[in-house]
């Protein structure tokens, strides 16, 4: 069973969301997701200042055998992208909830957060997908 930190929110497409005090959220992919994808070879991060809609494909993580879109769990504006991933995509594998974060988004509508799952619900979601 992979790690699912209790303080984070989760989307069905396996992104995690960390809510910050300044009205932004930090987004990455879960340990479970990186495990499915395998060794990362490239991460395409979004352009800072671009506007995104909830569930819009805004980044790409790429392993040798698969490329997967990252869907934004919320609507808003990209305020930062993790440039370190350009040279070290493996951070998504080694530290998915920390150094492997993908983007920071300034929320357009806090109500988007209500649509996300908590850790318990996400654990069940992962469980159900395995079958």
């Amino acid at each position, binding site marked *: 069973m992979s790690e699912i930190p209790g303080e984070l929110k989760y989307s069905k497409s396996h992104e995690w969301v960390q809510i910050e005090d300044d009205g932004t959220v930090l987004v990455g992919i879960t340990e479970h997701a990186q495990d499915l994808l395998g060794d990362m*070879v*490239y991460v395409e991060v979004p*352009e800072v200042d671009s506007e995104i809609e909830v569930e819009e494909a805004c980044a790409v993580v*790429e392993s*040798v*055998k698969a*490329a997967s*879109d990252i869907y934004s769990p919320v609507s808003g504006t990209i305020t930062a992208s993790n440039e370190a991933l350009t040279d070290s995509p493996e951070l998504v594998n080694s530290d998915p909830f920390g150094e492997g974060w993908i983007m920071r988004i300034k929320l357009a509508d806090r109500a988007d957060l209500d649509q996300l799952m908590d850790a318990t619900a996400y654990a069940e979601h992962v469980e159900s997908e395995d079958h």
Partner: protein
Amino acid sequence: MPYIPHTEEEVGQMLDTIGVDSIEDLFDEIPASLRHKSLDGVPTQATEMEVTRLMHERAALDGQPLCFMGAGAYDHHIPAAVWQITTRGEFYTAYTPYQAEASQGTLQLLYEYQTMMANLNALDVSNASLYDGASAMAEAILMAVRANRKSKSKRILMPANVHPAYRKTAEAIVTNQGITFELIDYDHTSGCIDPASLPTEPGDFAALIIPQPNFFGTLEDVNVLTDWAHKHKALVVGVVNPIALAVLVPPGEWGESGADIACGEGQPLGIPMSSGGPFYGFMCCKQAYVRQMPGRIIGRTVDLDGKPGYTLTLQAREQHIRRSKATSNICTNQGLMITASTIHMALLGAEGLERVALSCHDNTRKLIEKLTSIDGVEVVFSGAYFHEVLIRLSAPVPEVMRALYAQNILPGYAIQDDYPELENCLLVCATEMRTDSDIETYASHLQRVMGK
């Protein structure tokens, strides 16, 4: 049975193993109503002897005329070794190197190809081929729209002196994705795009296409054009002749920062004209855009023991993994053609390629001198040229061409259908294959025909 090794006895054993009575039983899942009875539209079988005779007769019908025609396919010398090695079964009958360990021959060769092409274009990377020059330009346009992160525009600036068939191909392939073309007229004196005529406020556009040489054979001021496009945040796609690159400034060195993508027709590098195909399209680009490049790409890596080896890489761009989000739908490429091209470039080397290029240029210069000494023949455009020139005849071109065909000469390509304003003009070319005596033959026949 031709190409089927089964003996009657074996067929019986195999059917027993399967547990059916006849081969016909194996098709029992096909609805009976759909079953087809006979193929009357296909001739009956023939022996290799019979087909050999037939094909010799057909090939002889087409003859081997003296060729002064270019327009996208060029008559160059190909060393004997090129196709003897290329058609070795190990290259000819392998497929895409999915099992890298059992395909190191093809893979290493393709890595060498990528190196040669990148060097020729002075760009960072090359893919392992597209179908041909025209479809490569179409793919380059799609790539430029994806790769240009400074512009969301789907507008492409397309000079009117890009090969007409290339423009038609690009339109057929890219316009379904909402990409639009804006035609830039050529300067009617020089035959080139006049940089001074370009707008100071061109509006948002994704890329400028720059042909070098252009379809008329004249040379564009690539440096100025490249800088102009970059100033307006557009990418530059060079459409280039690879033989010319031995002596012309390569796309990667155009202007301040170089073209972003270069593509073109690889045929001049070791591929026979063979009715226009199979040829291959090459494509090179700056490192920053490699993930937007379509087609197969080979990378060097190491094996479990740390020994160097080659493998398909960046496959996550491709259709078999990304499906509807792939950079292109291309799967099969022109592997055998670039096998030939790689061997061709290795045999010629830089010195050989330069001498071929210089001879093409020199022979074309001689041809033009001879032809323009005939009354009623003049050069149309003032621009510098590499190995193709547009000439205008005072006589109707179709009649002149017919008369020269009768002498077993391909006198050039008439461009009137594509450029109505260029009536009675003929695009002529002399490669390194044309001797002084060939040129004399052409000139004397032309003079006779024109004098009538």
